[in-house]
């Protein structure tokens, strides 16, 4: 399970315009969003539906928008991560960056929890 402190660093990732982290009840854990309550509702409810469809094989979802500020939903352990990208960045670059970011923080988390 990723440390929230580490997860918040998603804000510094190139191409991220807004982000939100919710738990499975829709409570906001971390955010940088213009309309956090609405974004949290969307990310949590859609995340649950996507999880119902794909179970543990659900990797991510992309809502494509005409203004190119696409919304991504990622399952992260007991949380859902929602990211709105900047319009200049390509989808696949943003997805790769987020996947790498999540992999890194999961690795860090495993290291810090290793028994001495």
């Amino acid at each position: 399970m990723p440390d929230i402190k580490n997860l918040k660093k998603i804000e510094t990732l190139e191409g991220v315009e807004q982000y939100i982290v919710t738990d499975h009840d829709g409570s906001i854990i971390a955010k940088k969003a213009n309309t956090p309550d609405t974004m949290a509702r969307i990310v949590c409810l859609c995340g649950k539906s996507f999880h119902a469809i794909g179970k543990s094989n659900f990797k991510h979802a992309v809502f494509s928008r005409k203004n190119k500020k696409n919304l991504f939903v990622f399952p992260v352990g007991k949380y859902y991560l929602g990211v709105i990208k900047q319009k200049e960045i390509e989808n696949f670059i943003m997805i790769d960056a987020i996947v790498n970011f999540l992999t890194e923080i999961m690795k860090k988390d495993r290291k810090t929890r290793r028994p001495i």
Partner: protein
Amino acid sequence: MINFCEDCGKKNTLEPKEFREGKAVFKCMHCGYFNAYKMDSPKTGKLGKINLFLKNNLTDPIIIGAFIFHLKTRVVINHMPGILKDSDLAILGKLLTDSYTLCHMQYTDIDELTLHISEKLVTIQMIDHNIAIVFVTKKSPLPKKIKKQFSDLISTI
């Protein structure tokens, strides 16, 4: 074409002659209820043209299948592998369209939802307020050529 009884909700397969003046008119084979609700003809209507498009374009090896989901009458055209039942597709269609609609209420410029599950991509587009098309592909998105042809078709019907 698959249509559902308004009374018992069970599946009926209709012949083209059962579409009259923009309506599906049929007696349910399960409960005998007389149905007559608004629905395009499978040959000349919007759905018919999309069905023809799908028949002609789903041969690309990257495409696993596609289906058309109607918000009220559920799966109306099914080009998915036989292993998936209509009831499975109806649940999939419902979850996807609900998610799309929820997001569209806030971000009105949404035009597509893509779900990455395992090594497959599930893409949903709304054709109008009630009808959605779902494409399932292997790993990569729908080929650009097919996507362009489909969007041209939608803009003409």
